[in-house]
């Protein structure tokens, strides 16, 4: 039996299995989200790997129980501290993360002047100095399509919203955790 796969099937599978986000309005996004391919790819990743394909309005990615917690942690810390520092400046961090160009100098200034989170910055090897931050941005995040390099600067792609959505989910998760944590003050 010969199966006819959608165009660019190999590229789509390779990118997603590499943990990359496929972004709107790219060609690969268009192919996956087309009505006739959407169900195929959801089933394909579920049946072949047990992974869930998430098709959002601005990006597509795979999730599974096989997570890369360390990378996820490093990026979450990075974006969170950045958001707090932008907010401290009186700017709208959502708009800045969506539209602004960031140079490494600007990033370094935020992290070097972040007194509230200095302990966490010091402790995390991926963000504790200029070189490690550069590597986090231009290796880890660039490879996953979380940022895009523009000249000497970079811009977040819409995929960064995964981390903002996670922050929103965390409020509920934390509430549930607190509800299930026994009160340690009394015995």
């Amino acid at each position: 039996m010969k199966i006819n796969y959608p165009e660019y099937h190999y590229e789509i599978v390779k990118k997603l299995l590499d943990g990359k986000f496929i972004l709107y309005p790219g060609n690969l996004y268009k192919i996956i989200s087309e009505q006739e391919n959407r169900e195929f790819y959801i089933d394909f990743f579920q049946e072949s790997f047990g992974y869930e394909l998430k098709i959002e309005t601005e990006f597509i990615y795979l999730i599974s129980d096989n997570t890369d917690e360390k990378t996820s942690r490093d990026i979450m810390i990075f974006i969170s501290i950045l958001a707090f520092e932008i907010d401290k400046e009186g700017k709208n961090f959502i708009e800045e993360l969506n539209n602004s160009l960031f140079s490494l100098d600007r990033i370094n200034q935020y992290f070097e002047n972040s007194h509230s989170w200095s302990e966490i910055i010091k402790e995390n090897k991926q963000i504790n100095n200029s070189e490690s931050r550069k590597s986090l941005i231009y290796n880890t995040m660039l490879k996953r399509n979380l940022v895009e390099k523009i000249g000497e600067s970079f811009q977040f792609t819409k995929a960064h919203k995964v981390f903002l959505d996670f922050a929103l989910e965390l409020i509920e998760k934390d509430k549930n955790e607190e509800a299930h944590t026994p009160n340690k003050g009394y015995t």
Partner: protein
Amino acid sequence: MIKAEPKTILYFLYQHFDLLKELFVAQSKNNSIDYEFLNNEIEKYGKEIKSQLFEYHILKNINDEYQITDVYYNLFEFILQQFKPLLPEEIKKYVQSISQLFFNIKEDINKDKNILIDRIDSLTNEIDKFLSQVKNNTASLLVKSKELKANIDNIDYEEKIHKASFWIEYYITPLNNIIDVQNSESIYNTLFKISEYANEKRMNYNDENIRLKFERLYNRLKHTLVEIRLQSEILVNELIPLIERIKTENSILKGMHIYLSKGYWHHIKDKPQCRLLKKQRDNIISKDFVLTTKEYFEQFQQEEDVFINEDKHEFNDWIFDKIKYKERILESMPIEDFFEWSMNEIKSDFKDFKTDNYFSIVSLLFEKDLNIEYQNKYKKIIIENDNTELKIPVLKITKNEN
């Protein structure tokens, strides 16, 4: 009765504007002015002015509380452009009075002309007041929202989310419901019906004086409808998105604060993390593997002579070929005594076999497509090559059709 000259009062307001502004701000926050606060403020400007504040009816005293009288409070609201947002219930009273006056005008349109004129004037005034309240309210809600956005009170994320939800739930959405252009029950549509009625009457009413009153009402309504549409647009396009943004923004910051401050980043195995797929390793053998392996070993290659001594040790050179024996089993089915069959097979292939060779064939017993029947009989076998004696059950093997 106020005995003082009006100009004296106005001069007093001008002279003590800073004090009055402080009192106005205090009352705006707490609805009244605290006795101690009032005395402290007055001391800064001179004790003698306290009596003037009461004499000119600027302040009134109710129990232990002080308040600026309504007329001055409204004046300060207006000149400082700091309106306190009104509850929707306070605005709705105009909707009721406007609807009631319109109903009465229609009911008694051919009755007493004087009451008709009074009602048209009153309706025009109520519409003016209503519009003014809506505009002041939208403006004040916009100021409040922008203050919240800029966080001038320096409140935390939780409080900001709470305040944004509060403004939306109790002030902005109900106000929008009152003036919503799309809603057939809203005041906009009531005013539109009044406007159509006034338009007709300004043309064909038999009394000229009343026609002029309807003309005035009609013109006022034309302006009011445009203004309400504008206010509704401000609410829908500017205010509601602004408040929603404040809510989202602060909810995200709150979540991030939880992540950083509650150790989620520290205990990554125990606490939930954003699900980011682990990159897959390509385990499939590359077509270039021979070359790359050779290359890998070549880097350790030493250019030294190598001497090989022939090993005289004898090796057992029988290798278990699972596929071959599996095929033989399938060909020989059914097998009445599996262990005996296995013994015969290995004997015919390799006469020097030992116990471990024998067990290699016996391991085929665990293949999924074989059906095993236990006969409840045992027998003894001896493997002479390594002097092993085994007690084994008699097992019948058939093909598992499932």
